[in-house]
């Protein structure tokens, strides 16, 4: 298998390859952009800047070809059909699209199931739409190690009233990996459709939508070396066919009269308006970048770095590390706290030492309430992070202990 060389790779990321570059440990919030992705987007703006699907001149034809080519790359990457790959603004928009399109098909008494680790972008749309359509939401809990409580999952997923099951693949707050395939089996057993929030898994570990057998899957480009403002909604063709459009406008119609409209074919039925052409092209280049490094190699590197971080941080007095213990399958992040120091203060101290981390509730306030935490400090890793980044983190956390005199 190929191996990742983080030092060599650093030169691919302009923001990290400057004098006094900060140590970037916040890839779970947003990744860094490699030169290949910047070049691909720049190429569009400089050489064939035009709208897609309409112009009858070479630049527009090229733009269409590259835009649809990016879709094909994404489809291959996910093991999906290009008709099943809808470009959106990101995970949040993909998840909202699903909630807004599926909620009207639910009635009072129906159930929607999710885990307590869901991001606000899953909890809030369903919670708000439940008020309008009268369905109920049930949550699958976690155990003391931050793993999904499978006994509770099996119990909850027996109900024939369940219509939708929405699952986070890898928790952005704890790093927990949710056993999607097993849960999809249970959900399909009671006739429910399954949505997977793959924001933290795509680009970090192999994700095959046929293997997972999920009905829908959502992710963002910017967390997998792509630009901001572009993301994907995968949906099984039959499921997308059965849904009404989310947004109306240009490109998503086939025929319009003053009285009636007919929808375009998949996937364009869900892509109203001029799409984010440069973003899609950049995301296609990100898929190529990942392909060159090898997804297995990326996963192995990130797993090794995360394990080292957990080992080094565990030695610090008064530290608490949240989420699954070392040695279990985990996302590329570690969430932690120091007794007696607010996560905001700890993250601030680390920031002043040139370490970029995220501190707070990680858009999972209900989970933080459940755990009784104001928040956590989170380090997350990518291919450009090396062992010395982890060692610098451990040293800086140790110095925070000194500042607070705990």
């Amino acid at each position: 298998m190929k191996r990742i060389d983080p030092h060599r790779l650093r030169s691919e990321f302009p923001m990290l390859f400057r004098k006094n570059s900060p140590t970037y440990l916040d890839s779970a919030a947003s990744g860094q952009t490699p030169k290949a992705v910047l070049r691909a987007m720049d190429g569009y703006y400089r050489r064939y800047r035009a709208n897609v699907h309409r112009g009858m001149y070479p630049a527009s034809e090229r733009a269409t070809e590259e835009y649809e080519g990016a879709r094909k790359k994404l489809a291959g990457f996910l093991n999906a059909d290009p008709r099943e790959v809808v470009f959106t603004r990101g995970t949040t928009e993909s998840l909202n699209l699903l909630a807004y399109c599926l909620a009207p098909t639910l009635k009072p008494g129906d159930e929607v199931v999710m885990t307590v680790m869901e991001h606000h972008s899953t909890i809030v749309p369903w919670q708000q739409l439940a008020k309008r359509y009268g369905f109920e939401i049930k949550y699958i809990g976690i155990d003391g190690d931050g793993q999904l409580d499978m006994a509770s999952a099996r119990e909850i997923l027996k109900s024939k009233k369940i219509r939708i099951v929405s699952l986070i693949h890898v928790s952005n707050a704890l790093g927990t990996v949710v056993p999607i395939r097993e849960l999809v089996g249970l959900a399909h057993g009671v006739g429910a459709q399954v949505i997977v929030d793959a924001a933290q898994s795509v680009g970090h570990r192999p994700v095959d939508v046929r293997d997972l057998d999920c009905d829908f899957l959502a992710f963002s480009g910017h967390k997998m070396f792509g630009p901001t403002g572009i993301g994907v909604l995968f949906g099984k063709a039959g499921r997308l066919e059965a849904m009404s459009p989310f947004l109306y406008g240009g490109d998503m119609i086939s025929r319009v009269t003053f009285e009636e409209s007919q929808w375009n074919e998949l996937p364009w039925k869900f892509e109203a308006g001029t799409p984010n052409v440069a973003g899609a092209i950049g995301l296609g280049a990100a898929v190529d970048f990942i392909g060159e490094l090898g997804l297995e190699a990326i996963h192995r590197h990130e797993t090794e770095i995360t394990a080292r971080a957990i080992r080094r941080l565990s030695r610090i007095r008064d530290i608490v590390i949240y989420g699954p213990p070392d040695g279990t399958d985990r996302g590329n992040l570690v969430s932690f706290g120091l007794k007696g120091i607010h996560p905001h203060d700890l993250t601030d101290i680390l920031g002043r030492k040139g370490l970029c981390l995220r501190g707070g509730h990680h858009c999972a306030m209900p989970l933080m309430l459940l755990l009784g935490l104001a928040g956590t400090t989170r380090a997350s890793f990518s291919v450009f992070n090396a062992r010395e980044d982890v060692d610098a983190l451990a040293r800086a956390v140790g110095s925070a202990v000194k500042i607070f005199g705990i």
Partner: protein
Amino acid sequence: MSRRSPVDPVFRENIIDHYRNPRRFGLLDSPDFVRRESNFSCGDDLEFSVRVRKGAIVDVGFAGQGCALSIAAASMLSERAIGMRTADLESMADGDIVAMLGVGQLTGSRLRCATLALKALKGGLADWNKSRK
């Protein structure tokens, strides 16, 4: 290495001291008004109770949880507010809080932590004044 390394002007000893041992901590029994403010981004959540006599603040007590800056600012401002004319408190600005803390410049999210107490006291006073008219 010194315990106060040069990169941490925000975490000076007096900030840590006020954070560890906040003054005026605990809500008053019969306040003229109470005001709760929270800071969404980092979960600071503070409640203030205030007694006012003849246009001056005579007692302040607060409760809640937060980061070192928000608690230290609440502690220092509560001490300072006692004896102040309400009009003087209402005219205090964010810059006065930063000066009171003595932490140099604060940006974005940290400024919101530092000024949460002032926001609560000013907001509470404004509503109380309105309710008396």
